[in-house]
């Protein structure tokens, strides 16, 4: 856990958290300067899982590069694939069949719930409560089973392709999703009873890791982390893609900006996703699940940018094309990367015991940061 203990010239203690630490959920390494128990500086040390996905994509075709993006934010694999597919479709001007659009949104929202479930369980575990993890996994497993049946994989689905989705829905899909909705609604009150209302939990979250609205904008923080500070930044609302502008759901905003606000945003966001799924599950149009596309895709010379709302925030895919079959340059603006940049700001001056609560509510996924 602690690799090396050193002291600065001023007598401050320097400790390392990670790269292997249960609360960083991945190989994130934080170098922390401490004065007693007070944090003076948090410096993230990245690159332990850097695979240079951007460079790799330069030699992969527009059909192939999408698969590398499932390995970025592996908890939002569908949404990452979605962003890439949308960018390529934008460049080629492909119209997507209505059925594929609905399937994509359904999958995105199921992913969002699964991701928030995992976060909720892990968050409680970071703060010392082990039971919630099992409750979260009970629901999350149901979603993973649905994914497995239709996409053939539980985490890195690679289901969305330019033009639509790879294969049609499994015949059981609708029934299983409906079963999941019933299960979820029967169990969701347990989340509040078990964790949200717990006074010890609230004391550890409230007023901890406060991020002001101005700071959130300046640091480029997006997603639930920014919405906890009152920044309206839901891409689904601001720059609607696919069929989101025809759906009814609310953008969840809290104004406190502390860890508890970020916690509440995610918890309430799951209910919004449920709302979206309920609107769509009985209304999946018949028809093709994929538009007819050429075997070899060539994007016209130019630049294409597409953003989507992943479970963590705004993911941007920026493709520069020279007209060939592979991208000339590709950049993934990953939400975790920008969200991490505010960690030092929100923890500085606080106690080391609060670091985990602040970091946990930012919901960092390390492969998304390192890429």
């Amino acid at each position: 856990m602690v690799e090396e203990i050193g002291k600065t010239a001023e007598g401050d203690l320097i400790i390392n958290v990670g790269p292997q630490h249960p609360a960083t959920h991945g190989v994130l390494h934080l170098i922390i300067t401490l004065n007693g128990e007070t944090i003076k500086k948090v410096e993230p040390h990245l690159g332990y899982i850097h695979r240079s996905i951007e460079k790799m994509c330069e030699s992969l075709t527009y059909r192939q590069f999408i698969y590398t993006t499932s390995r970025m934010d592996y908890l939002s694999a569908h949404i990452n694939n979605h962003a890439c597919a949308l960018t390529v479709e934008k460049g080629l001007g492909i119209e997507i069949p209505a059925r594929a659009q609905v399937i994509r949104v359904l999958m995105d929202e199921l992913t969002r719930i699964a991701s928030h479930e995992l976060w909720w369980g892990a968050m409680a575990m970071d703060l010392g409560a082990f039971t919630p993890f099992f409750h979260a996994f009970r629901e999350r497993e149901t979603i993973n089973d649905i994914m497995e049946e239709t996409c053939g994989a539980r985490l890195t689905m690679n289901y969305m392709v330019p033009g639509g989705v790879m294969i049609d829905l499994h015949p059981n899909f609708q029934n299983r999703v409906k079963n999941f909705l019933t299960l979820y609604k029967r169990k969701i009150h347990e989340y509040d009873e078990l964790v949200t209302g717990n006074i010890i939990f609230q004391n550890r979250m409230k007023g901890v890791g406060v991020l002001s609205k101005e700071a959130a904008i300046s640091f480029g923080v997006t997603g639930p982390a920014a919405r906890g500070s009152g920044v309206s930044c839901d891409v689904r609302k601001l720059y609607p893609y696919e069929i989101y502008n025809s759906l009814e759901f609310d953008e969840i905003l809290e104004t406190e900006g502390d860890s508890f606000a970020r916690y509440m945003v995610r918890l309430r966001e799951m209910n919004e996703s449920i709302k979206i799924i309920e609107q769509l599950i009985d209304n999946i149009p018949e028809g093709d699940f994929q538009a007819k596309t050429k075997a070899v895709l060539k994007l016209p010379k130019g630049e294409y940018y597409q953003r989507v709302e992943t479970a963590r925030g705004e993911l941007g895919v920026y493709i520069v094309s020279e007209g060939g079959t592979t991208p000339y340059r590709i950049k993934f603006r990953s939400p975790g990367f920008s969200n991490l940049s505010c960690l030092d700001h929100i923890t500085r001056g606080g106690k080391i015991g609060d670091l985990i609560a602040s970091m946990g509510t930012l919901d960092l996924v390390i492969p998304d940061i390192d890429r």
Partner: protein
Amino acid sequence: MSNEELKTIISEILSKASFEETGEWLNIGLEAADWKESAQKLRNFASMPFNFLFCLTCIDWKTHFTMVYHLRSTTTLDNIVVKVKLDREKPEIITVSDIWRGAELFEREVYDLFGVIFLEHPDLRRLLLTDDWVGYPLRKDYEDPINMIKL
């Protein structure tokens, strides 16, 4: 707001800017020497402060580098793209991490992978690669016989 309207407004505050109509957003071309001043003007523009730097990256065009800054105003939700051309032999540009604080990590990443020097950056070190790494992997002429697999 349409790109044409944005162009009129921005050409008033940035006299030296050149405009380009590629992609879906307004592209603004600037000289590296004017960047800091222009960035401050864009950030503090009263009716439409471009306060959200949502993407910062670099492109290697083999003859030169282009720094690309994607900006958006959280008040009006308008997006613009600022492009600054850099000399490939001596890629240097002033940092904007004091204007948009999120730029600090983005700039470190670009330094790490492209070797662009950000002047007056508070902490310009390699971010993803190890400190003793030789070369800048995202440059087009980068060769690494050990770690790179050519397809």
